[in-house]
Structures are given as C-alpha cells and as structure tokens.
C-alpha cells in the first residue's frame, strides 16, 4: 500500500502542533505570573465556588453518545455503497438488489430510531 500521498498531511499536522505549542510556550515565557488565593478560584459569576465541577451529570448526554454511535457507524457503512451505487447499470436487477439491501439496512436504523423515540431519548424538555 502506497501511503506517500499522506506525507503532506503529516507535514501539516506537524506545522499545526508546532504553531500551537510554540504560542503557548511563548506566552508562558513572556507573560507575568502572580498567584493568589482568590485569583486561583474559578469564575462562577462571582459566587464562592463550592465543591468540584466533576460531578455526576445528566444521563441524557450519555444516551446521546450511544445513539450517535449507532447512526455514525451506519453512515460510515453507507459511504462505499454511495460511491458504487451511481456507477451501476441503470434498471438492472443488480441495481434493484443494491437499492433493496440498503433500504433494509436503513430500516434497521429506523427501528432503532423509533425505539429511542418511544423511550423518550429525543425529548429534551
């Protein structure tokens, strides 16, 4: 497998990382630094912060992540199909079979969607 066409992307990533790291280092070196007990607190609209921010959060965000996985993996599987499908012979049995297969594949996602909808995953009130 020839991956040499990806080398410029490696160069690009290196440049982006160097830019970011250099800027952060420069501002660390150039900027002043004064610590203080009040200055060290987080800004929460002027109230004295209590506790930690890393507490339990709403389970809804977890559900979103789960449903996203279902849909995103489905979309990844659709990409090769979408590239090959328009290049098939029109009106042949083969193209009907390809269309039917992908409709069935989408149907499985629709089942997941309907299940999630009935469970109230997509309600945000």
């Amino acid at each position, binding site marked *: 497998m020839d991956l*040499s066409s990806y080398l410029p992307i490696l160069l690009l990533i290196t440049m982006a990382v160097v830019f970011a790291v250099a800027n952060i280092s420069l501002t660390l070196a150039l900027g002043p630094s004064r610590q203080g007990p009040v200055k060290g607190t987080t800004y929460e609209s002027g109230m004295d912060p209590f506790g930690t921010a890393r507490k339990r959060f709403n389970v809804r965000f977890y559900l979103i992540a789960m449903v996203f996985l279902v849909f995103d993996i489905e979309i990844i599987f659709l990409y090769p199909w979408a590239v090959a499908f328009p290049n098939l012979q029109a009106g042949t049995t083969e193209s009907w079979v390809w269309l039917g297969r992908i409709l069935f594949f989408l149907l499985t996602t629709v089942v997941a969607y309907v299940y999630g909808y009935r469970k109230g995953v997509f309600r945000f009130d």
Partner: protein
Amino acid sequence: MSLPSFVTAQFVISALTIVVAIHAILIGCAYLIYLERKISAYIQDRIGPNRVGFDFGLPFMPKFHFWGLGQSLADGVKFLLKEDYMPKGADPFLFTLAPVAILVPALIGFAIVPWGGIWICPDITVPILGWVIPGGPVHIAGAAVNIGLVYLLAVAAVGIYGVVLGGWASNNKYSFLGALRASSQMLSYEIPMGLSLLVVLLMTGSLLPMKIIEHQVAHGWLIVSQPLAAIIFFLCVLAECNRAPFDNAECEQELVGGYHTEYSSMRFALFFLAEYAHMVTNSAMFAVLFLGGFHLPFIGALSPHETGLFAVVAKIAVLTLKIILLISFMMLIRWSLPRLRFDQVMQSAWQGVIPLSMILLVMNAVLVQQRATSLPSLLVANLALAALVLLIQRLLPRPDMNRKVRLPGSRFHPPLHEDVRTRPTLALALEDRPVEGSSPMAGARF
C-alpha cells in the same frame, strides 16, 4: 545522494500549498475577527475598530489609522504578553492539551480542498543536491489523497475532543456545562452532515473533491439541483463551528464563556483561532460540494481542463472569494438571529433534521436507481419533499412545554372590564418626556 522515492512533483506542490495555505489561513483568521467586529458594528449602528494603525505609538511613523487594520496585529501581541493563568484544581496536562487538541483538527481539515485544480508542473531542479524532479499534472491541493471526503469527516469528529477536554480540565461548572452542551450538539449535527454528504456522493459517484467539481461543471452546481441537502449541510456547518444561532457552547448570558471561561492569554486565542479556522475549512468544503468549487459559469479559464498558471491563480482567487462570501454570510446570520435554546437545538437535530436527511437520502437513492437525475426531476422531488415536510409539520402533535400560562391580573391577561395602561397618562409624566412632532396631550406614540 539520490532522489528519495516520495519526493515527486505532487509532493513538492502539496508541501508548498500547505505552507502557503496555513499561513494565509492563520493571518486570514486574525482579519476575519476584524471583519466580524466591523460587520457587527455596522449591524448595531456603530463604527467598530478604527483606531489602531501600523504606527504602534512609535515616533516618526505616519499617523494614519488604516481603518483600524492594525487591530488584529496589536491583539496578537497583546495575547502573547498577557498572563497565562490556570485555576486551582485544574488538570494541568489536559488544561494545556485542550487548546492544541481543538486547533490542530481545525487547521488540518483544509488539506483536501482543491484550491486550484490541476496544473502541469514543469521539471523541478533542486540546485545544491542536483536532483531533477520529473514534472507532470499535479493537484494544487494540500494532499491528493484518494479517500477525499472521508478525511474531512474524520478530522471534523476529532475536533470535539478539544471542547470536552477544555470544559473538563477547567474545574469550572460553567465550563463543564458548556463542554457537555457543545459536545452533544456537535455529535448530533455530525449525523445530518454525513447524510447530506451522502446525497452529494450519490449524485457524483466519487469521493474526490476534484471529481465532484467536474460533475458540477458538467451538470450544474449542486446547490441548484439539491437545495435541501445544501441547506441541511449549511445548518450542520453552523452547528459544527458553534456559530450562532447554535452557539450554546458559549452563550454569554448563561455560561459566561462556556468551555473556555477559565482560559486566558494565548490559550484563549487558540480557541478563538480554531473557531475561525473551522469556519474557513467548512466554508471551503461547502463551496466545493455545492457551489462548484473554483468554477464560475461562462468563464472558460475556470474549467477543470485549463491547466495553465493563469488559470490556477484565477481558480484560487475565485474559491477564496466564495469562502469569504460564505463566512460573511455566517457572520450576518450570527448578528441577525437570536440564539436557539439548548433543547430546541437538540430537538431540531433529532426530531427534525436527521429524519429529514434520511428521507432525502432514500429519495435520492430511488431517483439515482431510476436514473431520473436531470435537473427538473431533482428540483420537483426536492420541492415535493419540502412541501410534504411543511404539510406533515402542521399535522404533528405540538409539544406543550412552552404554552402560555394565563396569569389572571397580569398585564397580558387583565381582569374583565379593566383597562390596562402601558404608557404614562399623567400630564406631568408626559411633559417630562415629550415626543417630537406631537403635543404631549394628543396621544403621543411611545
């Protein structure tokens, strides 16, 4: 030393394109911030930044303000000289990693944008080493990779990490909430983005941006034949960039600054740069996918088959112009529309845009199978789907979470036979605030 095998004309041109483009985008981002401040100023009937020129307070320099164009430069220097502060309780490693993790995906996304089409490169002679790199047709793009748009989707998904890390590491409740909101919003809108990309792939049958542009040159721009997919893609671009009306990640009135509340100095600037770099990359992709890339109708020099140097320069100029126009449009949207509430954003994603884009995909699959992909049939199908959606939307049960509760005795629901006055009626009060052009007693308009 002989020529390494990976050094081809394509590699040289790609490296050159990357070095030029990354600098152009970083400087461009600084001036996009200036542009946004100017646009917001004119929308709000202000003048905006117009003081800082290029003299920087030094003596013997021309005191001309250059319409405030020095502002971006001064801001950059200011960011470097400010204190880089980390609150107590923050995770030092993740706190530093977050700005890098958000800027790098934003900056590497443009690699597949075909800036100037194909150029016939002459043989390149490297002076000292004595190499002769054989020329040939090369893509004026950051990287001519054969996965094309999949690269764009992969890079866009990585950008979420920076947001989540920034919110988590800050140990600030507002930051954490902003990060949760931003990540769930970006995840949700990635799905319709992928689905509307699939519609483009069904039309063109290729993942390569150059092939997509060639298809649009031959069959007309896809924004004309696939308006619904274009609208969905643009919505998703706004949501992915956390731009208004989808800027729930950093809604100032609720969450101070969202996931970058605790950031200062250059780290904050990196978050800011990343947002604008995201806008540049995504506008470039929108221009390539739906606006014909570097193509303009009726101009022969801009066809993909022109491979001269002049054609390449003209194509780069046209694509840059389209990107700037798209970004200006996004800025106009930001300063015109109010921000959506978080539950509205998520519900419109999961109950609106995602089902719609799936129906759109199935419709286009059937049309492609029937080879009914001429412009009129696609337009009719799109219009029919839009009409169907509008019709069904009327029939669906409406959620009652925002219904108006009658509060007897309030200004909006006064008791029966009671007149509610919302303007002063006392003669003295009217005299205090006389209205121009009318006498105070003649029912002044307030």
